[in-house]
């Protein structure tokens, strides 16, 4: 039993840290430190830098540019990005669609899409959820009917993250309405410029534009854009959702938020003139989160250790903890950050605005913290809501 990272892994961490320190643009870091999402250009520029270094697609096979890292190294890489904080390689490209094409796609598809995906020449978005298919994803209704060389797609996707930036969308569509739910689904790749696609913004409660509705009205998708076999799209979806099981823990992201929180609460005096961190109740709440995060970090280590050795691809029971605890901790961090800002958390600024404080009323560090708190309620909903996670645990691990 060796419970520490190896010498080589520690050296790798330093290498990643040095790279980020040298290459990450200051504006990107500062924007993310303030709790805002990086702009499209920031994400693109950063991913191209990573790609030039050979680090943009940690999960891909070597022949398509993957760096052949151990799971431990992948974890370290993500943790360092999160703690910087720096943008992650775009998940839709690198964690979701890319691995699916690499696993199920044709040689043609791999050559055509993967290099552009890695370099973020194409921005991808995910067309899974529908108004009637959220937690019950297999209940999706968007239809694709084969006509000659094309599928004709009709229907609606929703919660499509950053579709406003996207060049391409990967879609789950129903190709056999008579088969059982999971068996009539196919996985399609669709150019967002195809006629018949309409993207409509959904503004979330904090005022941000992150997600969209995407409407498909007689959209023609060439049959060569089918990934895997027709009606076997659910296999692709399961593969995609099962990938990177420890990604949802986001330990580095929470550690970065706690650092920020403690810095703010230690220097800003607001409780009877004393720093907020000296308020025993507040300090205790922060401490409780730190302990939970330490436990989660060790749970991630356990998952990495077992998954590295496991041949059968069956998840460790500890994996189920990651989504639930990971999101609970992040949400708690966002709540404590908002509380630390006191009344100045209430300023309703434009979350998309450049600069840290577009209307110049609140202290810079306080700006937008309530927005992040409101926005992060999504974390326990997306990626299989935490209640769905509990259902999975009850069935798969507890046999109930």
């Amino acid at each position, binding site marked *: *039993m*060796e*419970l*520490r*990272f*190896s010498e080589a*892994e520690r050296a790798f961490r330093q290498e990643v840290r040095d790279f980020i320190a040298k290459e990450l643009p200051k504006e990107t870091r500062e924007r993310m430190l303030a709790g805002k999402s990086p702009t499209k250009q920031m994400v693109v520029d950063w991913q191209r830098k990573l790609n030039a270094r050979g680090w943009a697609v940690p999960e891909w096979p070597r022949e398509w540019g993957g760096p052949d890292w151990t799971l*431990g190294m992948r974890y370290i890489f993500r943790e360092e990005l999160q703690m910087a904080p720096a943008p992650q390689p775009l998940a839709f490209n690198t964690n979701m669609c890319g691995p699916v094409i690499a696993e199920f796609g044709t040689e043609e598809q791999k050559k055509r899409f993967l290099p552009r995906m890695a370099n973020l020449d194409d921005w991808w978005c995910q067309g899974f959820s529908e108004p009637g298919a959220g937690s019950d994803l297999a209940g999706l209704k968007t239809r694709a009917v084969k006509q000659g060389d094309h599928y004709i797609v009709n229907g609606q996707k929703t919660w499509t993250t950053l579709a406003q930036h996207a060049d391409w969308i990967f879609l789950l569509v129903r190709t056999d309405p008579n088969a059982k739910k999971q068996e009539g689904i196919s996985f399609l790749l669709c150019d967002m410029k195809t006629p018949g696609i309409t993207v409509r913004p959904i503004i979330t409660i904090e005022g941000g534009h992150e997600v969209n509705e995407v409407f498909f009205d007689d959209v023609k998708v060439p049959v060569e854009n089918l990934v895997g076999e027709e009606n076997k799209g659910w296999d692709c979806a399961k593969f995609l959702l099962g990938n990177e099981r420890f990604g949802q823990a986001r330990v580095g992201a929470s*550690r970065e938020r*706690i*650092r*920020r929180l*403690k*810095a703010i609460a*230690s220097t800003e005096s607001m409780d009877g003139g004393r720093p907020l961190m000296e308020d*025993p109740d507040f*300090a*205790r709440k*922060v*401490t*409780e989160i*730190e*302990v*939970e*995060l*330490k*436990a*989660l970090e*060790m*749970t991630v*280590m*356990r998952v*990495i*250790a*077992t998954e590295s*050795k496991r041949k059968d691809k069956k998840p460790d*029971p*500890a994996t*189920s*903890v990651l989504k*639930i*605890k990971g999101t609970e901790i992040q949400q708690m961090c966002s709540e404590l950050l908002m509380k630390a800002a006191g009344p100045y958390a209430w300023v309703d600024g434009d979350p998309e605005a450049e600069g840290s404080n577009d209307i110049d009323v609140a202290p810079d560090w306080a700006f937008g913290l309530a927005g992040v708190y409101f926005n992060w309620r999504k974390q326990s909903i997306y990626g299989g809501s935490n*209640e769905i*996670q*509990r*259902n999975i*645990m*009850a069935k798969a*691990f*507890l*046999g*109930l």
Partner: protein
Amino acid sequence: MDFDLTEEQRLLQDSVARLLTDKYGFEQRKAYMKSAEGWSRDIWAQYAELGLLGLPFAEDEGGFGGSHVETMLVAEQLGKALALEPWIPTVVIGGGFLRHGAEAGLRAELVPQIAGGELMLAFAHTERQSRYDLNDVATAAKKDGSGWVISGRKGMVIHGDSAGKLVVTARTAGGQRDAKGIGVFLVDASHSGVNRRGYRTVDGQRAAEVELSNVPAEAVLGNPEDGLALVDQVVDETIVALAAEAVGCMQVAHDMTIDYMKTRKQFDRPIGSFQALQHRAADMLVQLEQARSMSYFAAMGVEERDPLERRKNMASVKVQIGRSARFVGQQSIQLHGGIAMTMEYAVGHYFKRLTVNDAMFGDADYWVRYLANAGGLVTAA
């Protein structure tokens, strides 16, 4: 990063598990509890045979050179069985004081006796007023020629009634709550100046109130003027064992609950088919796994060289283990329903052990407060 056990560790774990499965069923345990000493000498002899009593001591002193990982493995098995023997007081706590505080000659004399099962130890530290503060010591040690004489009262001395020797903390200088001026002494428990009153604790263990009147110390462990650092170290190492013991208890309580949910029928269906109960069971699993992770972290974090960092590590272990133990313990009762309220049913005994385990050397709330005051685990940036 590798959580696999070595072949020797697996053998150790299996042999302890096998012994306890054979000899420590719920009914057998009840019989041990009812015996005069409240635990089993026969089982103790078998622990000795398996090498559990010499586990952490150096091989050239008659031990087995086990690390904290071995301590963790054994403690988890003992937790699963709710074992009643004085293993933690003797081997982990007493053994810790000998390993870190005794001179080689004393170890050469005592380690073989401990490893052979002849000598039990107990840690006489808590006093009526001290609660969980390790620095709160009123019991006094006075210089007497070349040695020390100890007088005072110690309470809740776990397994103090069957111990052959007591490890006693006593003040050699300073005020009652000063960090400096605490000494650690080894005392013959059968000395005429030692008056012991044994009793049972709620979780079925034994404890004693110990009165010391002018009892000569047989040995000084560590620096008699500045022994708190030694106490801290031994307590931190004991937390490795306590955490693992709690994980063992939680595992069984959770398993029993899941089994019960599959068999108990109400409204013509197993109660485990109800989603409200399924989600509670899933939350118990989350808490159990987080606790298990922190039990591993304990074995790693206790090796930290800086005493403050080490203590912060162990504080975080106590917090998570305590929180998890409370949740898993309470919910295992709740999900069982009435049956778990009966003395006849095992799960309540796990709950009781978990409750006491949390409070040993400070409960989760105590350690949250400590950790918050010590600046937490994450540095501000």
